[in-house]
């Protein structure tokens, strides 16, 4: 298993009110999974994604990521794990506005101290792979929503992580663009074997997932494999 969650819960305070975002969640994500976390707003999808992504700590339970118990390590010590094991795709793209598309994709490789020649080759390959090579020198504000998300996908993939976490990756895109992005993600999953976990409301994303995990009030209500991949 790439990710294994055992009896994971997460509570936090919202003003004076205690909120139980996740309650005794058990979940395994296998290598190569193309998994959608579905559920209504407040069901705990994003919280679960944050915990798997090592940017939040559970209140209880255990999370093992690629063989490492990440619940035992302080968050700020998990920067290297995030850098080398995980890739993020955000609903609002979250590109660095002052960097060009090329530089945005290059950034994770700089964190990994990849040499200049190899860096350049990988950045160009991934920009080409997501179909954005012609816009390499443009900044995010010069790109359309679909183009920005393609850059974000290239940025997430370029460091060759084992797991890509995507929070509502198609929510800010029109249906055509969203379909193209989903095609691209499915293709990358199939070609590279990279594991994808999405948090989504979008029925189109759910229908494309190989595996669907439904959350309701912080608990897993359905955990099913699709009949057709």
């Amino acid at each position, binding site marked *: 298993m790439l990710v294994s969650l055992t009896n994971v819960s997460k509570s936090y305070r919202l003003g004076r009110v205690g909120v139980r975002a996740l309650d005794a969640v058990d979940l395994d994500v296998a290598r190569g999974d193309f998994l959608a976390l579905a559920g209504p707003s407040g069901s705990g999808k994003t919280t679960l994604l*944050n915990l798997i*992504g090592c*940017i*939040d700590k559970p209140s209880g339970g255990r999370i093992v990521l690629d063989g490492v118990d990440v619940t035992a390590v302080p*968050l*700020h010590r998990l*920067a*290297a*794990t*995030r*850098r*080398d094991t*995980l890739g*993020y795709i*955000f609903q*609002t793209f*979250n590109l*660095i*506005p*002052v*960097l060009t598309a090329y*530089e945005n994709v*290059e*950034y*994770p490789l*700089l*964190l990994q101290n990849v040499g200049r020649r190899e860096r350049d080759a990988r950045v160009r390959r991934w920009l080409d792979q997501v179909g954005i090579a012609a816009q390499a020198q443009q900044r995010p504000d010069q790109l359309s929503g679909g183009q920005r998300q393609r850059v974000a996908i290239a*940025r997430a993939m370029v460091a060759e992580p084992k797991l890509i976490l995507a929070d509502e990756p198609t929510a800010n895109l029109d249906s055509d663009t969203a379909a193209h992005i989903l095609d691209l993600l499915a293709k990358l999953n199939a070609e590279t074997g990279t594991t994808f976990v999405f948090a989504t409301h979008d029925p189109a994303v759910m229908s494309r997932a190989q595996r669907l995990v439904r959350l309701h009030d912080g608990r897993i209500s359905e955990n099913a494999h699709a009949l057709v991949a």
Partner: protein
Amino acid sequence: MTARIAFRNVFRNRRRSAITLLVIVFGAVGLILFGGYKQQTFRGLRESTIRSRLGHLQIYKRGFASNEAKKPLEYGLDDVAALRRAVESDKRVKMTAAQITLMGLVSNGDKSETFIATAVEPLKEKQMNGYRLVGGTDLPANEPDAVLVGRGLATSMHVKAGDYLTLMTTTTAGSLNATDVRVAGIFMSGIKEFDDRAVKMPIAGAQQLLQTKKVERLIVMLNDTDDTAAVRADLARTQPQIEMKSWSELASFYHQVVMLYNGIFGFLGLIVSAIVVFSVANTILMSIFERTREIGTLMAMGTTRARIARMFLAEGVVIGVLGAIAGVVGGALLASLINRGHVMLPPPPGYTVGYPLRMLLTPSILLTAAFISIVTATISSIVPALKASRMNVVDALGHI
């Protein structure tokens, strides 16, 4: 990449960065102008103090400073001619001038006042040019009983050039002696208290009045002030019968001015630094607030806290460097414009003549202004940088 991101982020909100840069530029320009003015004042005051009054070195007979003389010139120099030959053989020495200081009463027949006379060698005194003649002529070379009278004393004594006064003092033997002198001219030094008591007379006349062949001191004028310590050391080795004081030991007013100006400069520097600190810190804090989600994204991607902190520190450095460059260029241009404008300042307290406003721009002043700008801007970004690096990633990503 850290520097690239920092540099571009500085220009992201141009108006805000421009205001911050302006604050740094104004601060640097202020430091340069005041520093240049201070430097010019120090140099001008130092050289005028040396060239017109004190000389670089003053030579006395050994024991002059440590013993209280019971009679005038008890510790005077006996064979000044031989000493002068030895001192002037050094090529770093421009000239020497013998002097005596004496005090006594001056009378016009109707009233008496105390005077402080400096007995000088008329031709040497003319070269030193430490006073301004406001009536009559300079001291003649060969008239022992001619004197110059300070303007205040001349007014008090109701004398003009050509009139006669009587000087009375104690001789080296301890008896009283008096002589009639002709007022050759009236002078002013610029210091009122001095001009109210001052008399200049030829050294030959003073020696007659004091009934001696001795002189009190030999003033040594050098070509270059920077040689003072070296010449002093050489003279101390070759002339054991003498003792010396350098201009610095005698120029108490100069040192008071230096201390005062340095204090003001330090205070000004503190104010400028405080303004820059608040301005830069405010700019970077606003930038962090606007970029909270971006910081969250960078951290989610595996950027370490230290790297985030470095990124914002680098922004402080970039702002500081840009401000320093613009400030140094602006300060140097403004200083040269002021220097060309020949602006006159009013007389300082105790002086009767004004002086030109000039700035002496030395590399150290420009470097100091640049250094303060960069260091202050960098220091101001430390707290915001630490704040950014300690953000909670989930909260930062959820920031709108």
